[in-house]
């Protein structure tokens, strides 16, 4: 069996489903997804931090694209606009930090555009600081540990491609009565955060977050397409296994 033809078939089916469902969901319909309890924790924490005038930090991992976890960097960039509502843009207590330069340049562009679309083209935003605490993984961790230690009761959001060292950040935040919401995509970071963080988004659920934060027809279509591809993939694997067992494949 030529597996690469199967791969291109999967890409074509995904494109067709994505386009069809995007147009279908344009007139108000939407795809009902299951409730994500971690999202409620995130919203509660954000409300409490904004009302209390406390500091919040979003950390975006250290890779834009990686072969082991494809698309994780792009997904963390898609999460950022959902967190930039008017209060956040205005109140000046939000830092967005990453250790990869390209992620940082992307984030600055997203923040400036979100601000100008929401308020006015003439204004430039002062409320959100995009920061690079350190250019490598561990220098980034060292810089963030110093920064998180300064402001107690911090609101920490982790989204993207991390290693296990991210557990140091969540420990600093938790030990100073802060809240942690972790959407760390790699298996090693999830394993390190599993015993420490309540609001931990597991595995593929990370790709659910952009749609939960900013619903749009395209993202609803992405959910439905992903579910359909999942079921197709399961059937394909089972069928291929049976054919292999009987010697056809």
């Amino acid at each position, binding site marked *: 069996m030529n597996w690469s033809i199967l791969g291109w078939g999967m*890409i074509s089916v995904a494109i067709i489903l994505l386009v069809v469902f995007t147009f279908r969901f344009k007139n108000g319909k939407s795809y009902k997804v299951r409730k994500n309890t971690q999202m409620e924790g995130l919203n509660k924490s954000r409300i409490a931090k904004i009302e209390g005038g406390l500091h919040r930090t979003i950390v975006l991992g250290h890779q834009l694209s990686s072969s082991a976890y494809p698309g994780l960097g792009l997904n963390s960039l898609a999460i950022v606009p959902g967190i930039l509502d008017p209060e956040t843009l205005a109140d000046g207590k939000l830092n967005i930090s990453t250790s990869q*330069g390209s992620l940082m*340049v992307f984030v600055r562009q997203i923040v*400036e555009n979100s601000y100008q679309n929401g308020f006015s083209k003439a204004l430039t935003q002062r409320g959100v600081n995009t920061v690079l605490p350190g250019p490598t993984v561990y220098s980034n961790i060292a810089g963030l540990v110093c920064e998180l230690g300064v402001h107690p009761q911090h609101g920490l959001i982790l989204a993207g491609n991390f290693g296990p060292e991210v557990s140091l950040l969540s*420990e600093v935040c938790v030990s100073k009565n802060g809240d942690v919401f972790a959407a760390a995509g790699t298996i090693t970071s999830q394993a390190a955060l599993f015993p420490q963080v309540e609001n931990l988004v597991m595995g*593929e659920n*990370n790709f659910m977050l952009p749609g939960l934060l900013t619903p749009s027809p395209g993202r609803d279509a992405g959910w439905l397409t992903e579910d359909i591809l999942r079921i197709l993939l399961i059937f394909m694997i089972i069928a291929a296994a049976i054919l292999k067992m009987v010697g056809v494949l």
Partner: protein
Amino acid sequence: MKKILAISILLFIGLTVLAGYLFPQELSPILSLIIDWGILLIGTAVLIGIGYLIKRHISLISQREKQNFLSIILLLAFISTIILGLIFSFNHPVFTDLMINVQYPVETSLLAILAVVLLTASFRLISTRGWTPMSIAFLCSAVITLGLDAGSIYLGSGGAGDVILNFLRRLPLVGARGILLGMGLGGLIVGLRVLLTIEKPYGE
């Protein structure tokens, strides 16, 4: 106008690189060039990021923030490293020894602190996550793997012992495959959403 230009650049680069998976041989001259220019852009972005790092610490110093002498230390270290690198050249032993004897101890010590943090966190595993199938499986799997690594659980060599050991060693692979397949599906969809301009990470 700007939007159309951005979208056309995105589509041209995206579709060319995607076609590279189909015709690697035929497209390789163009693809290696696209990759080279991409690496140049990423290198420039890293320099921009470091620029912001330096600018932030300069503003901390000028605003006389608390503990701004730390920013002075950072700037001095930055400037002296660049001067040393220019004087001694990048691969000179003095320069690399300086790097080795600062980066290696600090990073290894940070990783050592992680050991204590993981130990502390593991004590609160059940109080944080509660008794769920996943946390119970996590606990049993971690304890068995630690036992096997430490040699405390020794199943003898050859025969049934090896068989069971091999089976236990492969169990984590099952969940890993499922997670990676799920991440692959998610990566495929998020990549297609960007290519179909449903998602615009470049800030429209």
